[in-house]
């Protein structure tokens, strides 16, 4: 588990609108990479193109390539469904399935794909995933209750448990803490630090401190003006980005002198 990602000359379109242009980025296995940048610069768009979630939007398409340990995810004959099984995703707003219990939510990946599992194996997987998401102690007595009955922070950790239950190689997170209070945020940051042992993690965040706290590498995206495509300005070790970036725009942004 934990694979490398390499984006090569990646252009991402919504219909005829070029949203992100010319991204070249190497993401090392078992590291946390933070993506930062002003609103609308294409962080979510780029993140969603990594697990081929971008193309579920009508008219959306991608040019260039993204390689996962050397295989092109956009190559001919690659099934996007298979890609998404290897690259899990956690969304900005927690989105547990409202018709399912907490238990079923965790193993939704298996249940929805009709994967047959023995009862004790499922129980085990549920416990492991919930422990992995730091949620087990809070919900172990009400696993059969609906997932939508949890608090926002708990729901988000449930979504993380659901994502890691399918045992992906990579975990993408799009502002996973933006709807959460500081305590839940800390819980999720701790979790990211633990998950890094097994997974390659890419996280979009607007919170500089968070990027500095959790990530090993940071990529800064920027946009020149409305209607222009977003670009990857600079990517480096997080320490370096926050202390001595090579680009002026990066320095302005991380020091809060932006716009």
């Amino acid at each position, binding site marked *: 588990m934990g694979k490398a990602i390499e984006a090569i000359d990646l252009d991402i379109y919504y219909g005829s609108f070029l949203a992100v242009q010319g991204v070249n980025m190497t993401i090392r296995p078992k590291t946390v990479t933070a993506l930062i940048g002003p609103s609308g610069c294409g962080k979510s768009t780029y993140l969603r193109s990594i*697990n081929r*979630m971008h193309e*579920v939007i*009508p008219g959306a398409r991608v040019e260039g390539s993204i390689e996962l340990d050397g295989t092109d995810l956009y190559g001919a004959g690659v099934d996007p*469904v*298979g*890609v*998404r*099984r*290897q690259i*899990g*995703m956690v*969304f900005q*707003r927690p*989105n*547990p*399935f*409202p*018709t399912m219990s907490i238990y079923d939510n965790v193993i*939704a*990946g298996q*249940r*929805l*794909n*009709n994967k047959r599992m023995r009862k004790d194996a499922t129980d085990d997987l549920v416990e492991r995933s919930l422990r992995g998401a730091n949620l087990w102690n809070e919900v172990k007595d009400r696993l059969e*209750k*609906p997932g*939508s*009955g949890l608090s926002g922070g708990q729901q988000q950790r449930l*979504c993380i448990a*659901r*994502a890691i239950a*399918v045992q992906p190689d990579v975990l993408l997170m799009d502002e996973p803490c933006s709807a959460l209070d500081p305590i839940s945020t800390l819980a999720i940051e701790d979790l990211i630090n633990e998950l890094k042992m097994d997974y390659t993690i890419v996280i979009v965040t607007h919170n500089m401190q968070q990027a500095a706290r959790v990530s090993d590498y940071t990529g800064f995206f920027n946009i020149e003006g409305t209607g222009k495509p977003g670009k990857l300005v600079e990517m480096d070790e997080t320490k370096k980005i926050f202390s001595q970036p090579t680009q002026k725009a990066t320095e302005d942004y991380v020091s809060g002198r932006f716009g």
Partner: protein
Amino acid sequence: MSIETDKTTPQHDVDVATPLESRIARKGQLPRWGTAAALAGAAVIIGGALAATGAFSIGLFVFLTVVLFAVGLYAISRAVEGGRKAADRVVTIVVTSAFLLALIPLISVVWTVLSNGVARFDAEFFSSSMRGVVGEGGGGYHAIMGTLIITALAAAMSIPVGLLTAVYLVEYGVGTRLARSITFFVDVMTGIPSIVAGLFAYALFALFAGPGVRLGFAGAVALSVLMIPVVVRATEEMLKIVPNELREAAFALGVPKWRTILKVVIPTSIAGIASGITLAIARVIGETAPLLIAVGITTGLNFNPFDGRQATLPVFAYYSYAAPGVPRDPYVDRAWTAALVLIVIVMVLNLAARLIARLFAPKNR
């Protein structure tokens, strides 16, 4: 920050110069029984006036009482409580009267059907057909069975077609020309007069079986022409309100689209879909015109929708009333009872729709 909030707060025409305490100080308030007293007062005054002129009629009395009540309460309330409260009271009166007005025809229909239909609402009505019956006795068993069979057939044809069409429109066809034209034709179909649906089914079956054909199945086809657009529309609306985030959540777990639809989208909206379908059934079960043309009527029991005429409740009621035998009364009584049974069926379907909605609704705790 403070500038922002100032902009968004609605500006009242309050005199800012007066001190706050006097601005928020309560004006007078009418006592709780004030409204009732005003209504009673208006009724007494109007009643007295009408009695004095000798032109008393209940309609005029109610109308004038409400008008005087509204005007009087407005005047009193304005004097005591101020303009805003007074306007509030008048609007309350207007809305309530409109509601009661709308309720009158409904209650009147239910009451008329109930009082006329209850005479023959007996075991015999539910157990015997009209075969060999002249005058008293007999019943609508054959018509009840015919209605149930034909409606069930129509539902069996419309629900899969309607459901799949809606799934296509919402999940696959968004923005395509095909989807737009389907939506257009569904809208057109919603407006088709039911008699046209009947003529269509009749003409269709006359092609195969020759003119004069009457068939339960032809009636079912006519009903499904009316039912499909309703099912499509109801299902479409329900599928649309399933949040996109749930679909994306499933996709991100590596679930193929068709499984996502089958196991996430439809289960999430099944409550609304089921009650929409039930209401669509309720909508067509009382259709008369298409069945009159395509199915006709018969006096005996016929369980086979592919073999000749079948009786149905609406057509049975229609013929019993329009072409009764002699003596007339037993026929008319049976017509009312058939109408009553139909209303009961529709009511049961509506209750079932609510029950289904509650049963399937995603639970929160």
